[in-house]
């Protein structure tokens, strides 16, 4: 008989006034007892609506049934049939718009906490003594993966399991892509990312860091000179956008990418880091997505008073509700219907304040959201010695400009079919490089799909 309580089991978190001063993980995860109790809320629906909401179609009721019985190892097996990065996705997936949004328990009350259960199972597995990795027998085919973010890791993992000789090429000095340089430690501990990468290495995947494909070597050279039969492009959408307003190049003005890279990749928040960061005393973050929330919460942890300015209202915020909630609890202030038009300078070339225009909502625009329009004459200034632009990213043009016969959209995204095949024979692509900035799970799903198509291609070559 399922547990019919209307609420999810609460997950323990660090208290807001404690966590807004440290970079340790905010959410602490379920205990065994909590996980089993939560799993018992699942009705085990025959038609599995939750699974249809999952971009990689994890058999959710089946794994939850195993959790309810305390069979965590079995639950892990079921999840990893479909997902390559459960400890990551259990933390950063927008479950409220995916699996949990379809949960029957959510019609009256809260849905089953599928994300928390996924995280519990993955963490439980990672805490078990290491079983010696089984390296699959080689099938003699070579595949290259460009980029070691979620799509690349998923693609490499699936190919390696089938016996392919896989090499990942990564431009930075560590693997993980956005999982390493973008998402902060307090939301996704880097030890978890490292664990996933170590798992791939145990499967025989080689990772060449410090290799910028398009500069150090081209895709054509990888295929012609180095014997790679197929290539997967998972280079993400890493090019930051700026607003092109006066004062944007002042000292103290960052792209969210730069701010987060200094903190997450280069560990600038640590006392002894050799890479500096200046979060200032008053930080303004421009934008309303998950990246803006991450940047804001980092700035807060570095001691700044933080404002998020967003040109629409709270209802249109693209960030996950949970992230917004966490940010508010930590003392971050929101200025809605606010659009920066200029950053003013002090006498030394540092940002001093942000001049903002008050906005109001009007008719929906092309994105379907109400379009913000200026209220004439309504301006105000926010003091800020740190300004972080978090208004989106686009794909890096490097691969396109150095690969013959690779077609892209006008805005830079690589054109690929539903299996990831590009306009170039043997070359596949997926994740943000194809779709523009999206989620970890969608990128992972695209990597898995491409891996299946690359397998077909190489087998039948």
């Amino acid at each position, binding site marked *: 008989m399922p547990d019919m309580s209307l609420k999810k089991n609460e997950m323990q978190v660090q208290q807001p006034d404690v966590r807004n001063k440290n970079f340790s993980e905010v959410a602490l995860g379920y205990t065994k007892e909590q996980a089993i109790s939560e799993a018992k809320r699942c009705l085990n629906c025959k038609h599995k609506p939750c699974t249809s909401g999952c971009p990689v179609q994890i058999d959710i009721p089946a794994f939850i049934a195993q959790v309810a019985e305390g069979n965590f190892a079995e639950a892990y097996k079921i999840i990893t049939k479909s997902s390559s990065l459960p400890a990551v996705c259990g933390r950063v997936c927008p479950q409220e718009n995916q699996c949990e949004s379809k949960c029957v328990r959510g019609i009256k009350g809260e849905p089953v906490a599928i994300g928390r259960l996924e995280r519990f199972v993955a963490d439980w597995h990672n805490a078990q003594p290491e079983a010696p990795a089984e390296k699959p027998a080689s099938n003699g085919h070579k595949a290259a993966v460009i980029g070691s973010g979620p799509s690349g890791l998923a693609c490499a993992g699936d190919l390696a399991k089938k016996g392919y000789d896989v090499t990942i090429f990564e431009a930075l*000095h560590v693997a993980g892509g956005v999982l390493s340089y973008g998402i902060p430690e307090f939301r996704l501990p880097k030890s978890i990312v490292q664990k996933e990468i170590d798992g791939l290495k145990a499967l025989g995947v080689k990772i060449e860091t*410090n290799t910028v494909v398009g500069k150090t070597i081209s895709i054509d050279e990888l295929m012609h000179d180095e014997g790679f039969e197929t290539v997967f492009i998972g280079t993400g959408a890493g090019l930051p956008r*700026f607003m092109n307003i006066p004062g944007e190049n002042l000292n103290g003005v960052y*792209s969210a990418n*730069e701010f987060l890279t200094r903190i997450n990749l280069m560990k600038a928040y640590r006392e002894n880091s*050799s890479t*500096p960061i200046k979060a200032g005393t008053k930080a303004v973050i421009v934008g309303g997505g998950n990246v803006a929330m991450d940047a804001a919460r980092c700035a807060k942890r570095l001691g700044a008073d933080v404002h998020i300015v967003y040109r629409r209202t709270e209802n249109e915020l693209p960030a996950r509700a949970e992230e917004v909630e966490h940010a508010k609890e930590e003392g971050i202030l929101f200025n809605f219907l606010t659009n920066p038009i200029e950053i003013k300078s002090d006498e030394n*070339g540092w940002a001093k304040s942000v001049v903002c225009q008050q906005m109001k909502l009007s008719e929906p625009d092309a994105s379907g959201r109400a379009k913000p329009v200026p209220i004439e004459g309504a301006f105000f200034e926010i003091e800020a010695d740190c300004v972080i632009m978090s208004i989106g990213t686009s794909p890096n043009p490097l691969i396109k400009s150095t690969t013959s016969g690779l077609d892209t959209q006008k805005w830079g995204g690589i054109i690929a079919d539903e299996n990831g095949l590009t306009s170039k024979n043997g070359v596949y692509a997926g994740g943000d490089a194809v779709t523009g900035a999206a989620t970890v799970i969608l990128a992972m799903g695209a990597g898995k799909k491409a891996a299946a198509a690359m397998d077909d291609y190489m087998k039948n070559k």
Partner: protein
Amino acid sequence: MFEILEKRSLNPTVTLMKIHAPRVAAKAEPGQFIILRTDSESERIPLTIADYDRNAGTVTIIFQIVGSITEKLNHLSVGGCLHDFVGPLGRPTETEGLKKVAVVGGGVGCAIAYPVAKKLHELGVEVHAVVGFRSSDLVILEDEFRSASSRFILMSDDGSAGEKGLVTDALRKLIESGEKYDRVITIGPLIMMKFVCGLTKEFGVPTVASMNPIMIDGTGMCGCCRLTVGGETKFACVDGPEFDGHLIDFDEAMARSAMYKPFERKAHEETCNLFSQEVK
């Protein structure tokens, strides 16, 4: 890991290193740069490629000891390894269609100006090299410049080497004496490049300046190295590092390059203290 095959002190604060990095050497061109880290905790620092040998698989870097990481770099010896070494990054120097060029270098910037002069010289371009240093003990690559140019002018602030004066004084004389250049290429301190570009603008000589701003990834991802060129924001790492010198906002670039000066100074002192304790 990237092995140090050769190390040579060019002057008390400038060091040359030859690094084993075959993939980088295979693609390197004058004007491009690399990013390195000395150890697993190191900052990423960009350095322009001073030379390369495709057959030997080596890349030469020349650096001035100015901060914590260059101090650490200078303490590494032949046989030691760099933790990370990535490149070649940025666009190569454009050499097409050039017949007569003045290469104007200042200080350690001459390390970057030299491979450009050499490449142009090899292509049959008439090269005039104007290089400037504070004093004679800081002069680097004099013989190399002489062999890569048909005219070589050495300047120093105090007159202890070559002529006394600034590179802009020498360049002005050359232009006023009737030398007609298709292009001036200038590499050195921002303030020097600003004045070189001001001078050539006066005479309408097309000029390219090589920028070396603060960078993190070097692939277009962070935007830290952005500068204003002709009213537009450009990224030095992917759009440069060379830009039309008459369009660069040098004042903004100078303000941006000073962003972390106090931090750098402190970090450098700490590193020096660390090394001096080891010696004791």
